[in-house]
């Protein structure tokens, strides 16, 4: 039993261990921020690598906690993203007084996500979700001198409290209907009692809030703009990915009996997210807001894949999220570095960026192309497979709208590329020196963008682990 706990809970325990190590580092003499940052990055790398060995299937605590190869893979993906964000945040945290606390918050949130992904019970899911959101609200406030940062934190905590309330109400109704919160029990329920439908509506609204699907997206742009870039990156990539992972498993297991009901709902959410996200992204000048709205549109594409509800659909969603992590983090990395050094965050500041920073320009361009879904970057494969999964149900007009929206998204991504390469600027951003951790992270992202797509084996591996509805 005890060995079971150590093996099955290994990733959670590793994170907890790092959290405690960091806590103790605050005791005694001051180690210096840079040393701590190096240590943390190293620990996160070890944590990431350790996720690839001794992975077994099993459950703990009376089915509350469940793990398997797919779950471990999802956790590894989140670990990878956290490590990359940690590397990218280096130039920002280097001069920050409370770097250790930042990691405490970030890792607690990650721990919550791990429990959430592994949950086999709605209660466990809810606990994990809360653990993952509340620290993030504090982290959003981490630009301690900026007013917008605390505004972002306030908005985040209020909106997530609201969505949590919806979820909690939904969960209690579920319990009222079925007398159990275990996924395995819920999956076998039959019939459409109106209670169940109502619980479903509440739950799906809560989820839509967390992944900021339109029309539940209103908090996103402000929070993204106000938060420090590293937190924005974490919010838009890691926290969204974790909720999507759970969303898929909840839809495919708990709401399996309601499949004919949730299909149109996911469908509408997908369409709205793609269209509204795109239309708003066109008008943005602030880079973070721009990425916020474009991430809403990307989420719409993920929902298209989810609506396919096949084995290929699940695989495409996880695959796309992996690619999205690489692409979005590469873009955020460049924005973060530029912002940390010059304080400039607007797209118009990037005019003639290529004349001074060719390397960063190419990285940003590749990242944007991947987000836009242009080959040979991985984004192309991700989007193609999502649309393919969505088309499996024969809803070609959804695919039509989605693929025409790819053209719109192409426009605004190209706008940035145009600014970088083609427009003139009297005062372009000065040449930036790239610190080693950032460089490493950006190279990893670019390698990921190029290889994840072209190597078919990555997809095939994910496909072999996935299951459909």
């Amino acid at each position: 039993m005890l060995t079971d706990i150590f093996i099955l809970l290994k990733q959670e325990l590793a994170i907890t261990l790092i959290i405690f190590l960091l806590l103790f580092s605050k005791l005694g003499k001051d180690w210096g921020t840079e040393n701590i940052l190096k240590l943390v990055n190293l620990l996160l790398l070890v944590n990431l690598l350790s996720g690839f060995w001794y992975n077994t299937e099993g459950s703990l605590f009376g089915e509350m906690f469940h793990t398997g190869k797919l779950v471990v893979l999802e956790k590894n993906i989140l670990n990878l993203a956290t490590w990359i964000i940690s590397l990218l945040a280096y130039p920002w945290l280097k001069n920050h007084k409370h770097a250790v606390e930042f990691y405490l918050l970030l890792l607690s949130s990650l721990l919550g996500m791990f429990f959430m992904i592994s949950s086999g019970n709605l209660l466990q899911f809810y606990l994990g979700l809360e653990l993952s959101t509340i620290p993030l609200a504090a982290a959003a406030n981490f630009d301690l001198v900026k007013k917008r940062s605390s505004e972002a934190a306030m908005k985040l905590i209020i909106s997530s409290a609201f969505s949590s309330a919806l979820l909690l109400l939904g969960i209690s109704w579920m319990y009222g209907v079925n007398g159990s919160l275990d996924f395995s029990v819920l999956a076998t329920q039959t019939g459409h009692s109106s209670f169940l439908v109502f619980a479903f509506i509440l739950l799906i609204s809560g989820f839509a809030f967390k992944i900021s699907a339109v029309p539940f997206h209103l908090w996103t742009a402000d929070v993204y703009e106000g938060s420090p870039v590293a937190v924005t990156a974490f919010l838009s990539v890691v926290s969204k990915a974790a909720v999507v992972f759970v969303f898929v498993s909840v839809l495919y297991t708990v709401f399996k009996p309601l499949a004919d009901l949730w299909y149109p709902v996911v469908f509408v959410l997908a369409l709205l997210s793609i269209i509204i996200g795109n239309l708003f992204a066109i008008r943005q000048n602030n880079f973070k807001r721009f990425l916020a709205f474009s991430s809403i549109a990307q989420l719409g594409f993920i929902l298209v894949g989810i609506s396919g509800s096949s084995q290929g659909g699940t695989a495409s969603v996880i695959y796309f999220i992996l690619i999205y992590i690489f692409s979005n983090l590469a873009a955020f990395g460049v924005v973060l570095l530029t912002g940390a050094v010059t304080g400039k965050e607007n797209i118009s500041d990037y005019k003639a960026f290529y004349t001074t920073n060719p390397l960063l320009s190419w990285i940003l361009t590749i990242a944007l192309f991947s987000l836009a879904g242009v080959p040979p970057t991985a984004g192309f494969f991700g989007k193609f497979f999502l649309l393919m999964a969505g088309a499996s149900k024969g809803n070609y007009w959804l695919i039509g709208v989605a693929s025409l929206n790819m053209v719109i998204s192409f426009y605004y991504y190209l706008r940035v590329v145009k600014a970088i390469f083609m427009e003139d600027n009297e005062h372009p951003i000065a040449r930036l020196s790239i610190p080693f951790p950032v460089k490493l992270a950006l190279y990893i992202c670019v390698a990921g963008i190029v290889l994840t797509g072209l190597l078919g084996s990555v997809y095939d591996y994910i496909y072999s682990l996935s299951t459909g509805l």
Partner: protein
Amino acid sequence: MNLSLLIILPFLTAAAVLFCRGLKQVRIVALTGSVAQLVLSVWLLFAYCSERAAGNHSMMVFENNTAWFSGLSIHYHVGVDGISIAMILLTAFVVVAGILVSWAMEKLSKEFFFLLIFLSLGAYGFFISLDLFTLFFFLEIAVIPKFLLIGIWGSGKKEYSAMKLALMLMAGSALVLIGLLGMYYATGSFDMLQISQAHIPLATQYLFFPFAFVGFGIFAALFPFHTWVPDGHASAPTAASMFLAGISMKLGGYGCLRVATFLMPDAAHHYAPVIILLATIAIIYGAFATMMQTDLKYINAYSSVSHCGFVILGIGMLTQTSVNGAVLQMISHGLMTALFFAAIGMIYSRTHTRMVAQLGGLLKVMPFISTLFVIAGLCSLGLPGLSGFVAEMTVFMGSWQNPDAMYRLATILACASIVVTAVYILRAAGKTVMGPLPEGYANLTDATWNEKMAAILLVAGILVMGVAPFLVNQLIGPGTEHIMQQVGQVINPK
């Protein structure tokens, strides 16, 4: 022969370009790579001929089929027939010529040559693909370099043109994507050969044929989606114009034929009247629009709309001869416009104007370039002995074979457009190369060695095709026969 070499070689060249320093190294590497590619393409031609002579009558030769995403039954499947080989040769010619005319590209030379070669990689990959996913992948690869080439190195309203071109072509590929998914779910495969055997249900064909055809049609300047052509070509730097007209528009024509018509033959018959109508409008509208142009590049760009109309017309008529003519027209138009744009680029780099009204008497100071210009013009208006005549004549003959009265009317109208072509070509050529020489032009120099090489290459292609069309016909004949068998199998032409 391993067809993947055709992709690997440009890839290596592009990678090598990135490690070069300075214009001199870059252009040598780029030229070496593209000449090697040309040699490879010619070798492929001979390998293909000997394979056919040895009695291999399968539709595609040198096939290679490897699983890529096995979970989704997506394969990397390549193979060639005569049509693809003709297209590959065309691409190789235009690439070498394009690199030669950009010999003095000072601005960001490394990036420029990298993008040119990357663009050609997309085209090569596209022409050898037998799997729809691979094909689509390479089709989209070719879009981004165009955007950057026009936007960074272009002239005039370059940013507008680059954005317009990129968005319209992306819209085209979005439509293609819908068509591909429709075919995939009807047959469970992306493999063109399997799909062609599987026979897609009629309703599915009727639904998805327009998506695929219009999608590829946007690339091939199908009316009314041709509006990117004039702006894109006019703003692009010389080599990029040559690539756009010589290679990129051919992707569309090839896709219309190989994907839309070949895989959905019933729908091709069903929609033929619409296709022919649009093609006829494009031919006539393009010709008249050209008459009104005063900028040499716009003249050539609008005449491309008209000439590519012949490609679409040939495909729409669905007879063996007309489809042959469409393929011939693609090759001819590719060589001819590339030559035309090269000549315009040479004139512009010396006189710094492309306005017909400001030019004149160039034959006196630059006889070589002026001759090129006239050859390209004469080829464009269909002078016998040059490739344009062969191609257009074949299209007309093939179209006339279709006995329907409306189709014949369309053929007559298309034929009549040649008169208009003659008007604008002769007018532009006469004004530009003859007459009095404007002041200040007396000291202009003639073509340099690299420009001569590029031109000779293209002119040789035009002449060979014009004088000995049977060579090209033999090459593409079996390919179009296979396609027509598929089309004829379903509904016998009256």
